[in-house]
């Protein structure tokens, strides 16, 4: 076995710096993706024909093509098409938001459909307008139903965010790549990167459990 962790020690702070990139992409994309996914879900359950069709087509395309292709396209094709010099972070957040919005919209739609029909009727009978009913009565219950699925989506997004290294964004993965190039060793930098991802996922899982317990207090 040819392992030498002594050599990598000076580079550890550099790999740790990648946490910032990973977290930035993940957190912003999760929040925006959730909002975007909610909007898509609401469109899908509405009876508004053309928009409805568009949302379904949108989901189909984003689920039906590789994420890395979407990312590459957004980052490299945006300047070509619009002349706007999109930054790595912008491209990463945009792609992940659009992509996870497509996935989350299906989850949220399922959560909304699982809310007891009686809740809709009770809200209607009280004269609550549609928008308020969705925001205050239906969505909160729908989201509670799908909390575990949302946590899974967040974890998946955190791990998939490693793809942003392909456009050179300085996340954990990219910094590990850089260290590999500097010391010509593979195992050590990627082991550290893997460890960091794992710890972050564990923290996320723990946070999700706390949140879930709080939301279940009305049961």
């Amino acid at each position: 076995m040819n392992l030498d962790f002594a050599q990598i020690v000076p580079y550890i702070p550099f790999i740790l710096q990648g946490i910032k990139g990973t977290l930035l992409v993940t957190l912003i994309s999760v929040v925006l993706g959730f909002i975007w996914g909610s909007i898509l879900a609401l469109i899908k359950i509405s009876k508004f024909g053309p928009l409805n069709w568009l949302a379904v087509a949108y989901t189909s395309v984003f689920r039906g093509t590789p994420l890395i292709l979407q990312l590459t396209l957004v980052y490299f094709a945006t300047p070509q098409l619009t002349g706007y010099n999109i930054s790595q972070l912008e491209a990463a957040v945009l792609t992940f938001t659009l992509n996870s919005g497509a996935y989350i919209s299906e989850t949220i739609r399922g959560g909304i459909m699982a809310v007891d029909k009686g809740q809709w009727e009770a809200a209607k009978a009280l004269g609550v307008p549609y928008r308020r009913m969705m925001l205050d009565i239906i969505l909160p219950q729908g989201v509670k139903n799908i909390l575990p699925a949302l946590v899974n989506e967040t974890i998946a997004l955190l791990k998939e965010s490693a793809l942003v290294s392909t456009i050179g964004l300085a996340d954990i993965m990219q910094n590990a790549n850089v260290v590999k190039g500097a010391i010509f060793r593979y195992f050590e930098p990627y082991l550290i990167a893997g460890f960091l991802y794992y710890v972050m996922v564990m923290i996320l899982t723990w946070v999700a459990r706390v949140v879930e317990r709080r939301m279940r207090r009305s049961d």
Partner: protein
Amino acid sequence: MIKIDNITKSFGSLNVLKGISTEIGKGEVVAIIGPSGSGKSTLLRCMNLLEVPTSGKITINGQEITDPKANVMAIRQQIGMVFQHFHLFPHMTVLNNLTYAPTKVKGMAKSEAEKKARELLARVGLADKADVFPSRLSGGQKQRVAIARSLVMEPQIMLFDEPTSALDPEMVKEVLEVMKGLAHTGMTMAIVTHEMRFAEEVSDRILFLDDGRLLEDTPPKQFFQNPKSERAKQFLEKVR
């Protein structure tokens, strides 16, 4: 107050209501009874447009609610509805269940809504439950909260859709007591129920439905002692 003029309702090829006409006067308590599948609930749900009649007219206080241009939300705010399965909002406390619609829909000040809500909770005997979530209540308590939730909107009419059918027998009475109290305040009420004794005691009129038709529209005494139709006789024999 409510004028129902020859309404029909079909779900696909299924004709649930086959031309029903009646009137409910202000302060009147009407019990709607009949075998299951007779269209009782559908008739009730037409009165606040949870179901839109296929044809026919419903007028409330001179306003035609079946007019496609009618403001459905505004109409519903004047009509309270209590469901068989309560349908309290599970993610809100009892107090918030009551204050939600008045504050968010009617624009009532929060303090005023809370004051009214607490008064109503006291009236249905649940003043001490204001801050608990619905999941902690018994069925009877839930239904009383649901009644209070409707009343806080100050409706002119209250609709009850089998309000005691989902309750354990020992909880039926507490709900019926609240409804009786409400009837005595002069509230206009339409009640779909299987509680024959309650219907006889509280209602001013019985509407007996069978297979989507209104077979009897009579005072309770006459209905229970001497029903006109053969179908009502059979029904009463079975349920009593």
